[in-house]
């Protein structure tokens, strides 16, 4: 298991490798190195995309054509997008990339060549962490063989040329030369329960709590908003669970028999049952604290719990909403500390 210009195993990469492995890949590597539980995987680095693209550019221009588009030329954008995506998805990979990818896939899946993997886009631009940009690139779940994996890598690359992605870059005047994409390939967890958590309250910005949202099955049901998740709030320091909002979780995302994900109705006895035990809530809190401490700032985290009850993290990114807010200090030190009591005794609070 060794990394190369094309392949970066999680254990060999970190946040500083972001230009070649993307934000998501860098974060997964960073966590792996910090001994935070992450399903194993590797990144198909941007160099692979660059070589694939430059091979295609030789046949027919890509980047100059995109740059030539005006912001308001929606019809032209749509036509070009369709054309480019079809090209990227159908063109063969350069031989050595293909063989390195297959070797890494085989190594990742070991004896079980059909072991399901996730193929996830990992963009390199800062903007990719912006909520308005995130989600414009594709992710493929429960991909079950090597050939399908290769196809999905190309689809991820192609998603850079989706209509919204092109439109977004044109609108912000981003140079096409700086656009590159890495792709994460990661073993998939057959999640019993999955979801997201925030190391500060999304409601109040409180840094002393971890807010956890989760539902049955794969986390995609929560991330996509298809199900109202259970919501738990646990005190970061004391471990007190102060909120347990159990919702009606009518649907689960489960692995489909032939790969991919299926929406499955939740059995009656699980719908209103809490998807996490108190011990698991505390376990998630412990991991969340570790991740936050590692990064030194509040985090948004995607997590899953497998069928055996083991917790793994799928992603962690910095929390941006509250961190960017200017907040007046709650109190300042007083020259005479007794002045503080006037807040209580002084009236009209």
């Amino acid at each position, binding site marked *: 298991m060794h990394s190369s210009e094309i392949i970066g195993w999680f254990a060999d990469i970190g946040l500083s490798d972001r230009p070649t492995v993307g934000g998501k890949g860098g974060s997964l590597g960073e966590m792996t190195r910090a001994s935070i539980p992450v399903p194993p995987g590797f990144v198909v680095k941007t160099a692979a995309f660059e070589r694939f693209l430059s091979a295609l550019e030789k046949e027919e221009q890509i980047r100059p054509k995109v740059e030539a588009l005006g912001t308001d030329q929606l019809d032209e954008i749509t036509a070009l997008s369709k054309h480019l995506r079809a090209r990227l998805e159908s063109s063969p990979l350069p031989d050595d990339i293909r063989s390195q990818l297959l070797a890494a896939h085989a190594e990742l899946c070991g004896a079980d060549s059909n072991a399901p993997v996730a193929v996830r886009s990992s963009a390199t631009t800062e903007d990719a962490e912006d909520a308005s940009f995130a989600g414009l690139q594709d992710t493929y779940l429960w991909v079950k063989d090597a050939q399908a994996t290769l196809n999905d890598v190309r689809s991820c690359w192609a998603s850079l040329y989706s209509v919204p992605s092109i439109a977004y870059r044109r609108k912000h005047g981003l140079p096409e030369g700086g656009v590159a994409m890495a792709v994460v390939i990661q073993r998939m967890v057959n999640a019993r329960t999955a979801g997201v958590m925030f190391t500060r309250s999304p409601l109040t910005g409180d840094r002393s709590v971890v807010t956890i949202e989760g539902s049955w099955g794969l986390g995609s049901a929560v991330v996509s908003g298809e199900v109202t998740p259970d919501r738990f709030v646990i005190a970061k320091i004391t471990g007190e669970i102060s909120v347990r909002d159990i919702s009606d979780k009518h649907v689960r995302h489960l692995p489909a028999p032939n790969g991919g994900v299926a929406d499955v109705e939740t059995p009656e006895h699980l719908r209103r049952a809490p998807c996490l035990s108190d011990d698991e809530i505390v376990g998630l809190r412990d991991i969340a604290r570790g991740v936050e401490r590692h990064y030194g700032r509040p985090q948004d985290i995607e997590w899953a719990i497998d069928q055996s009850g083991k917790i793994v993290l799928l992603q962690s990114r910095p929390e941006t909403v509250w961190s960017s807010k200017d907040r007046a200090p709650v109190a300042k030190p*007083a020259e005479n500390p007794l002045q503080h009591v006037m807040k209580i005794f002084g009236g009209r609070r």
Partner: protein
Amino acid sequence: MTPIARAKGFPPPSSLKVVAGTESAQASFPYYMQFSKEDDERFWFYNSMHFPEPMCVFDMITAEAAYCALGSANTRVHSLPTTLGIDYRIINGRVYIGGNAVTDPAEIARRTEEFQRRAFYYYANWERLFAHWKDKMMGLIREAQALPKLELPEFEPLEHVHAGRGIASNHYILDTYQKTLEGYFRMWQHHFEFLLLGYGAYLTFFDFCKKAFPEISDQTVARMVAGMEAEIFRPDDELRRLAKCAIELGVDGQFREGTPPGEVIKALEQLGDPGVAWLKELAVSRDPWFNVNVGDGFYHNHRSWNDDLSMPFAALPGYIANAKNGERLERQTDRLVTERKQLIADYRELLETDDERAAYDQMIELAHRVFPYVEGHKFYCEHWYTNLFFNKIREFGGLLAERGFFPDIEDVFQLSHYELEAALVDLMTSWSNGSPPRGISRWPAIVRERKAAIAEWAKHPTPPALGPVPDIIDDPAIVMLWGITRENLDSWLATGEEADCNEIKGFAASNGVVEGIARVIKSADEIGRLRKGDILVCQITNPSWAPVFQNISAAVSDIGGSMSHAAIVAREYGLPAVVGTGTGTQKIKDGQRIRVDGGRGVVTLLE
């Protein structure tokens, strides 16, 4: 009984009628405690925290002395800027109270200036003044203990005559009675000397934490401030110590559930040395730590452990069993101190700026300075002194019962303190002139009538509040002492509208979720009905109930905040607790299955 919720208001006092047939018992409360028409304009709430049961007319002295002292501390001594004292009224034996807010900005400014000259001096010199306070309280207790025994001998003792005392024994009846009342009123003055300032400093820190950490639980803030050696833990600690002694002395076999204390003591005496050694240890614990009463110090019938050993003795078999199972009985003070320190440091680290950390340090320093008083005063005031006081009144009761004023010593509490003084003067006169006392034909019927009235009043629940709801509750005394906020008044009003809702909300007092059988305990006399694993549902608990907590699985109380005793003791025992539910004892049925979520402050009725 459900209050008829008007738009933003509770029923006016005038709509609350005296229960039919109890009019003369109601009239026994002095004129200044009776509602009048003008009171309809004001907001009142039922002080079920201190007076959860209808009170008999002597016991109103606890309201009278307490509100005189609370008001003078706020209004005249420390000059709280936005509030004067508390008004109170009694109807059907229920005590309603209302605050006297100061709203004129100029007056608030004037009072603020005074406050900073007065209250700030107390804060700045807290340790010295508090040490002085303890001396004063101990002096007061010694004085009460030294009050003379009451005697009306047939002939004045010869030595008095030969010494030329010149004052006969009947004079000392009145003198001792007046001193008894005087001491009690004085005790309440001292009770409020520090109280509001103490709560205020604590709330200052609490308020800061709630702003810096909007989702922090009340109990976490309380844990950061709570002391480890406070007097409120001592009675329970003594029981643990006695359990350990029993095992060490090999007499633990004598403590069995259900055996009356008298029998246990007799058996121990018969055992010889080890039994006698244990009884010596018991005597050490009893003075003063068994001077804790089973109520909150406001009812004569809430006897102390010293007066009735059944509560502490009922707890001993459990503590002995726990000790034998290898559980450490002593509270692990060192561990608690370390935990508290860590908790404070961990939250400090989460603050975002150095300024905030500096302010946090200042506020918690002040909260720690005041807290020994906040936690410790009750033992001296509401428990130790109050027990001495009620027991002294019992002596007067004995004197009167002996001479036929009423059948039972306890009947003395059916007379107001004014009436009691009259009866004593009647007795003094009778002793002096040889005629029978006039009271023997007067009091027995009145006592019967008043006892019947109290029993009747107890059957009629009373609205939690009366009159128009103020837009804002800005009175720090009311917020601090009773936890009354605009939000919980709104929820009380809503309760009237959605009577069938199966959730009851209160303060999240101690974390955890438990389902079990509710045992609704309406007065301290019913504690014996609790079985292992029951959920205690009560109006209020206090330190002497602590042993009960070793058996129950959760606690729910009608009134109280995160610093109430139920909350503190529940945290100590690691049991879920929801306090300040307002209506828990009325909505939960005895024997009903309920779920207590102490982290959320919600009680769910499951059947």
